[in-house]
């Protein structure tokens, strides 16, 4: 059974391609999350980013995945969802 193509069950009022979450027009008053996925030196990059953001008066919260080899565990996802308004993720080393 190939499941590569599905037929749209809806009234087709929304575009096929799902849009990204709306971007905030400004970072003023937003809590900025920094997610370290445990790639080498990601913590250094994000640490420098935190310094820059805090210098500019932003509130920064740090998050960390235990390993980059697996999806974030539920508690990390929950913490991100509840703990910040926007997120910056350090993907590559």
């Amino acid at each position, binding site marked *: *059974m*190939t*499941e*590569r*193509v*599905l*037929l*749209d*069950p*809806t*009234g*087709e*009022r929304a575009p*096929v391609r*799902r849009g990204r979450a709306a971007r905030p027009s400004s970072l003023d008053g937003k809590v900025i999350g920094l997610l370290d996925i445990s790639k080498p030196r990601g913590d250094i990059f994000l640490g420098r980013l935190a310094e820059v953001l805090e210098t500019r008066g932003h509130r920064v919260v740090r998050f960390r995945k235990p390993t980059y080899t697996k999806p974030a565990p539920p508690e990390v996802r929950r913490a991100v969802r509840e703990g910040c308004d926007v997120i910056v993720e350090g993907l590559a080393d």
Partner: protein
Amino acid sequence: MPELPEGLIAVVKQDCPTCRLIVPVLGELRAAGAPLTIFTQDDPAFPPGLSPVDDSALGASWSLAIETVPTLLRVEQHRVTSRTEGWQREAWERVSGVGGLGAGLPAHRPGCGSRTLEPAVRDVLATRAVEAGETPLRARPIALGELEDPIETAFARGWSDGLPVVPPTPARVLRMLEGTTRAPAEVVAVVPPDYAACTVEKVAINAVMAGCLPEYLPVVIAAVEAACTDAFNIHGVLATTYFVGPMVIVNGPVARAIGMNSGVNVLGQGTRANATIGRALQLVIRNVGGGRPGEVDRATFGHPGKYTFCFAEDEAGSPWEPLSVERGLAPGTSAVTLFAAEGPRAIVDQRSRTVESLAASYAACLRTVPHPKLVGGCDVVLAVSPEHGRLLREAEWSKAHLREELVRRLMLPGAEVVQGAGGIAEGMPETFRAGTWPKFAPENLLVVHAGGSAGLFSAIIPGWIGRGGSQPVTREVKP
């Protein structure tokens, strides 16, 4: 396939003993000078020496809707004008116009299944045909990424009622559409709250997701039609803060034909037709109509039957005519009746040995719907079990008689039902204080026979308060 070769076409595969048997016949047709094209589904060198056309990709076989090999067809002016399947000497001679074929062969031999019907192959071909726009399907194809799990995609796109759905692949949808004679593009209904036109194809897609078999599709289509009538008013049923959702009662021969449950655990889990038909209706409302909880669906509580609520009446064991017949359809007609339903409640009566006592029990329990002090407010389905039904049959009470008795026993004194009476603020306005008031009119009480053979219970399935919001609607199930 863009162009059919004119003349004769034979479709064969090496793996089929009948195809191997009739190789000499193909040779005879060639020798007779017949314009013959041979498509071979597996071994491109088969049949040897007859210069077959390789159809291992099955494009020609799919276009020609081959179900059996060998198949012999005649094409004239780009149209198939005659065909025969398997080996039958007379039929081959008729289609080819060549006599004396296959001397020494048996007169007939059945063929084998075409490779296009092998499940995995069929799925690939159906997908390819949909992508190429070569099927009657018009729904948008949504291509998945290589690493996407289609079941998770259905959740992520908001297509699910909260349970996993069967991914609606082109092959599954084409198979589902075989369950109806109606054209895929035919509009079944306009579905609120978005008022989107819902085609047979969209119903089929949602029926696939719900887990239906193709033979259930006509029942789902009839349920969608009934739900979207002004009388049933699915928009209101959806939007109300009240508990109700659409319940489907199935009558007539279709119920047995598709294996619906009308007996043990009739309102419960475990029967595919009951479970998936009700679910398919709700998925159509959700996906085609855009009716989702928290958006237009404002139910305070809802109830578990809003996942699915569908059952068949036990007609064979019933003391009465079926619900659909009572509601005006001819006996033996398959039908659905839609009812805006709360969850079911129990009536326990294990002591009554007379119908009078049983009717009084029913009345006492019905008084609480939806509140003991509210009168004239809603419809009710009373599902009478076989053991209670026996008492009613022996006393020769018709449905009409039972209803009259219930109405009579539920004439409530105004002083008991007005607001404030009994220390309860809920109730009828002060104008009701004088006189007595019928809790129900006879037409508010729908009586059906269903349930397991053991148990001195019946069930009340209350409707939507505020009568007039939704009326029960019965529709014939058409093929």
